[in-house]
C-alpha cells in the first residue's frame, strides 16, 4: 500500500504541522492554543470556583465542565452560532476525555470551567480542542495525573491515515471514510477517549490505536515544549 496518496501529500502516519502556545488569554486562570494545520482551537480555564447553578454542586468532589463552541466564521460556510446537538456532544466527550486525569476531588462544591473555541476549522477540531484544554488545565495549576493528547485516525477506503483533513473526511472511493478520534495519556499507556464514525474491522481498529499511540507521543512533546517555554520567554 505504498502507492496510497493523500490529497495534501502527507505520509500516512504524518500529522499536519502543529503549534501550541500557553497563556493566550490573560484574564483566564489558564489558557492555551493548539493548532493542527488550519484547525485552530483556543481553550480557557476558570476555577476551581463555586458551582452555579447550585443544584449541580457535588459535595463529594469537584466537577469538570467543558463547553465546546465553533465560531460562526471558523468554516467557509457560516455556521449558526450558539449551542447545537454536535457541540453539546463534543463538550461531553471532552469532559470524559479529560476527567480521568484531572484531580479535583479535593475541591467539593466547585466547578472547573473549560471553554473551548474553534476559531478556524479543517477537521479534527475535537482533537485540537482536547489538546488545548489539557494544556490550559495544566497552565491553570490544576492537579493532573498526566497530560492527554488527542489525534484523529482515519480509514480512507482500506488505508489507515493519521490526522484527517476535511477533504479526507468526505472520502467517497471504495469503502468510504471512517473517522476515529483517540485521546491518550502521555506515555500511550491509557486511552481516555475513543470514538468511531464509520465501519472498521476489529483488527484494523487495533492498528489504528497503535498509530494513535505513535502520533500522540509527538503531540505530547509539542505540548510539553509549549508549557516549558512559556516560562523561559519572560526571562
Amino acid at each position, binding site marked *: 500500500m505504498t502507492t496510497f496518496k493523500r490529497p495534501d501529500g502527507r505520509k500516512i502516519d504524518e500529522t499536519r504541522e502543529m503549534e501550541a502556545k500557553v497563556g493566550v488569554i490573560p484574564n483566564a*486562570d489558564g489558557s492555551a492554543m493548539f493548532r493542527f494545520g488550519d484547525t485552530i482551537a483556543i481553550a480557557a480555564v476558570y476555577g476551581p470556583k463555586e458551582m452555579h447553578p447550585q443544584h449541580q454542586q457535588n459535595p463529594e468532589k469537584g466537577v469538570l465542565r467543558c463547553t465546546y463552541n465553533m465560531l460562526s466564521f471558523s468554516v467557509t460556510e457560516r455556521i449558526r452560532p450558539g449551542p447545537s446537538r454536535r457541540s453539546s456532544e463534543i463538550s461531553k466527550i471532552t469532559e470524559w476525555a479529560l476527567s480521568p486525569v484531572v484531580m479535583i476531588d479535593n475541591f467539593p462544591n466547585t466547578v472547573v470551567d473549560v471553554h473551548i473555541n474553534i476559531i478556524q476549522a479543517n477537521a479534527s477540531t475535537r482533537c485540537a480542542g482536547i489538546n488545548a484544554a489539557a494544556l490550559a488545565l495544566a497552565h491553570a495549576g*490544576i492537579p*493532573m*495525573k498526566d497530560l492527554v493528547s488527542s489525534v484523529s485516525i482515519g480509514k480512507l477506503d482500506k488505508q489507515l491515515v493519521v490526522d484527517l483533513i476535511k477533504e479526507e473526511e468526505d472520502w467517497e472511493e471504495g469503502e468510504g471514510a471512517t473517522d476515529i478520534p483517540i485521546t491518550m495519556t502521555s506515555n500511550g499507556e491509557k486511552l481516555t477517549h475513543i470514538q468511531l464514525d464509520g465501519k472498521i474491522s476489529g483488527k484494523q481498529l487495533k492498528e489504528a490505536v497503535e498509530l494513535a499511540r505513535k502520533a500522540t507521543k509527538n503531540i505530547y512533546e509539542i505540548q510539553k515544549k509549549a*508549557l516549558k517555554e512559556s*516560562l523561559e520567554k*519572560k526571562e
Partner: protein
Amino acid sequence: MTEKENERNVVIPGEVIASGDDYLPGEGTEKRNKEIVSLIFGLAEEAGKLIKVIPLSGVYEPRRGNVIIGRVENLTFNGWIINISSSVGGFLSLMEVPRYINKDDLAEVMDIGDMVVAKVWSVKRKGIDLTLKSKGLGKLEDGMIIQINSKKVPRVIGKEGSMVSMIKDETKCNITVGQNGLIWISGDKIEDELLAKDAIMFVAQRSFVHGLTDKVKEWFEDKKGERK
C-alpha cells in the same frame, strides 16, 4: 534525571522528577512505582529527600492564620459574607469584630463593596471563617488595591519580608499583602502608589527568577533616573 543542588526545574503534570526509593513525595507530587511524579505545572525543588513542586498558577487555597484582603459581598443577620477570591466563600461573624456593633445596622460598620483585611480563623468544608481580632486588621478606607496570582504572593513578600519592606522603603507607601493575592497600597501621593504597583507587577511577572531582590533594586534605580 538532572537535579543539582538548589536548581529548580520546570515540570509538567505527569512528568517523572526523580526515581528510586531515596526520595519522598512532597506537595504537588505523587509516588508511582518508585518514581516521583509531578501533579502540577510548576518548579520542582529538592529539600533533602523531599521533593515538592512550587505551583505557578491556580486559585488561592485558604490556610488557617493567613491574612487576606476581601470584599464584602453580602450582609446577614449575624455577620458579613466576604469574597476572598478563592473557590470557597468567607464568613466574618459579628462576634469576631472587636468593637461595638449595632445589630440592627451592620451596614454602618461594613457595607457591600467595602474592602477588609481579615485573618483566616478556620477552614471548613463549606467556606471559611474570618476574624478581625488581631493587629492590623479591619476595614480599608483609602488607597488602592491590586490583584496578582495568589501563588506569587511569597515572592512579593520575599524572604522574611525583604521584598515588601524594600518596596515600602523605596516608595514610602503602606502596603498590606493578602495571601489571596490582593494587595493594598496607600501612600501620600498617587505617584508613589503607582510606583509601588509597578514594582509589585514587576516582581509578579518574574516570580521564578533568581536574585530577584537585586533586580528590583536595579529597577528602582532606573525608575529614579527617569524621574530626574
